[in-house]
């Protein structure tokens, strides 16, 4: 089973409410660089990026600091993480992140806070 964010870019209006709620929730600041979901406004479309819980990062982790919950969500265990960032390079969707001044990588854990903030229902938490 996997619990992950399903995105609908055709609905997205790039208001960035999702980025704001995410970074505020986890880093107590309104900063898109610290959001687990990323919105990119392209010339004629919007790109939405969030982890699909594919587990490629967990396979790459040398300390097994990326654990998988019973719901199929990949979590960073900071007590084991040594911040090598091999997970960031291994992520096929560029959904594992770092930020200037930080130590640990971070990622979407399918908490769903962004879904509630989205005014146009462009994000859903699904279980498959």
């Amino acid at each position, binding site marked *: 089973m996997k619990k992950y964010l399903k995105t609908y870019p055709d609905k997205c209006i790039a208001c960035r409410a999702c980025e704001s709620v995410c970074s505020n929730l986890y880093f107590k600041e309104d900063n898109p660089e610290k959001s687990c979901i990323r919105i990119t406004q392209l010339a004629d479309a919007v790109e939405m990026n969030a982890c699909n819980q594919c587990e490629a990062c967990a*396979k*790459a*982790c*040398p*300390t*097994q600091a990326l654990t998988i919950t019973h719901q199929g969500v990949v979590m960073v265990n900071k007590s084991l*993480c*040594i*911040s*090598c*960032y*091999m997970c*960031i*390079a*291994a992520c096929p969707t560029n959904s594992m992140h*770092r930020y*200037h*001044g930080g*130590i*640990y990588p971070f990622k979407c854990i399918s908490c769903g806070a962004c879904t509630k903030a989205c005014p146009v229902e462009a994000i859903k938490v699904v279980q498959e």
Partner: protein
Amino acid sequence: MKKIDRKLIAEYSYTLKPVEKGYNRRTLYINVGENKIMEKPVSDMMIDKFVGGKGFDLYLLWHAIKDSTQWNDPENEICISFGPLCGNTNYPGSGKSIVTTISPLTGIPIDSNVGGHFGPYTKFAGFDALEIQGKADEEVIVYIDGDSGKIQILSAPDEEINSHIIAENLIAEFCDAEGKEQFVSVVSSGTAADYVDISCLNFSFWDKRRKVARLKQAGRGGIGRVFRDKKIKALVVKFSGLKGDTNHPVDLDTLQKTGLKLHREIEKGDSSQCHMRECGTAHLTEIMNDYDLLPIKNFKYGQDDAAKGLASWEFKKMFTQNMPDGCWYGCSLACCKAVDNFIPRTGPYKGHKVCVDGPEYETVGGCGSNICIWDAKDVAEINFYCDTYGVDTISFGTATAFAMECWENGILDMAKTGGLDLSWGNADSALELLHQMARGEGFGVIVGKGVRKMKALFAKEYGADPDFLQDIGMEAKGLEYSQYMSKESLAQQGGYTFALKGPQHDEAWLIFMDMVNNHIPTFEAKAEALHYFPMFRTWFGLQGLCKLPWNDIEPEDNAQTDEPAKVPEHVQNYVDIYKAITGKPMDKHELIRQSERVYNFQKVFCMRMGKGRLIDDIPPYRAVGPVTEEEYLSRQDRYDKQLLEKVGIDPKGLSLKEKMQKTRAHREDQYRQLINAVYKRKGWTPEGVPTLEHLSAIGMDLPEVLEVVKRYL
């Protein structure tokens, strides 16, 4: 596991403090003979002139021994150092320890670069280097507890010596609890190191997925023999506090970004470049065979159809795939492959399920092609027993190849080998040699003395022609050659034979540049390469780094740069991470100067111990050209063509013997011209002595150095 009743022989407590900018500013001295443990400060001079890593090792060793010190004198030390960049988890290949001692094979300092967790953990436990001196009265282990700040010398009454067992036993004994094994690392050797000089040390790292102690080797130069001569069974370190900034860099962001850039390069490029993640360095075997560079029959030939039995695809089938096989955290190049659940068919562990670390390319060449063993499983078994017994696979391969060629020439027979048939390719005999080394008996102990001592013995005891033995015995300075053919690359003949510790390719690997691409055609160009690359590669040993992420993965646009052989973008990466960790100024020129100081110090160190002379830089002719008629005939078209085009002698009408003589005269003359050009470029006299002016110019004019040099000027 049976609990070991240990006696506490000595104990020392120290103050824990964080690493700052890559340095602890103190080293650890342990005398297992006098049961003395103390800290020593690291001075600004040490950092400025010796940097760290191999530089610290050599500096400490120099001041610990006398000119007359032999490998088995109590004052000889084993020094292990780590370097300021060692232990960062961001940049691939940053977990190396460098081990030095006075070698039983060469009588001069050997330096061996090794992965595993012992080095970084000992650094983070609080020390920039570790010196071990003296000889213990009884078997001991040394325990460094980096969590509580305590060092102990403990008795080691009854446990195993062989590394694959003792490493796991000690990890289980010293870890805080099950599930915390990854915080403990062990240095050990093996039973063969009690008897033979071609011995190594194993540095462990706990593999969380396989749940085994993996073993990386400080292979070259017989350090295991010194270790066991001191009656040390193991060094153990525990450090549980590793984080992404434990090295306390001044600019973590640059370090993280530079490391991530290389991770991404590897992620994208490895599967189309070197396949390190699939096969490790064993990917090289078929490439070397294709280019006539894979050693076969004691370096007679460079190519054989049978080598397909040792090709990377054979090992890929054996290596467990898709594992983060780095020997230190954060190495995404992940070259240290393993054969899981391997079942040896011989020896004391016959029928056991074991994990084999490797085989790497050097082991495939030495323990495979060079002795005509073409079955990958046999190579894996030799690899396993070499590691656990504490035997260097490179020296074992080259020494066994020498013995097999002596057998082929009738110098050895069943009576002399104690009933072992040393025909090419006899895997059973090769394995039995190893088991004999571990038992300290039979002809294995003779082979374990290394090629130089075998040459003297076979000439004296068996009446063998010493000139022939000199020609085919692939050693220089007493160390066995590693596993590349250098006959067609003059630059590589120098790369091997000028190497300060003996013929190991870690100073320079110039074969493709020289032989394949013809990028360094003149003596001056070769000399420049034999200056730059040994200096550049020395830098890895000063910092605690691995060479592989420098040029076993290259940026996509590397070929379009002005100097692709140097991989300029990666050189800049090293400049950037050095500055990011230490906060000290650095550029690509200062990088070379740092190395040049330590390199020349090591050169003078060799002179102090009675070597480092011109005569020590002369290779056996097997490394230079065809010794035997069959060798010449096997590549007759090539050699005849060279006589005509390079020497200006028409081979038509010449006898085979005449052609061989003229080829030899030409090649040896070329090598002499190379020596002149290289010594000049390195700032040395025609006899290979660093000049006072050069030592002053590079800042290595310490009084103790000049005192030695003046003896030779």
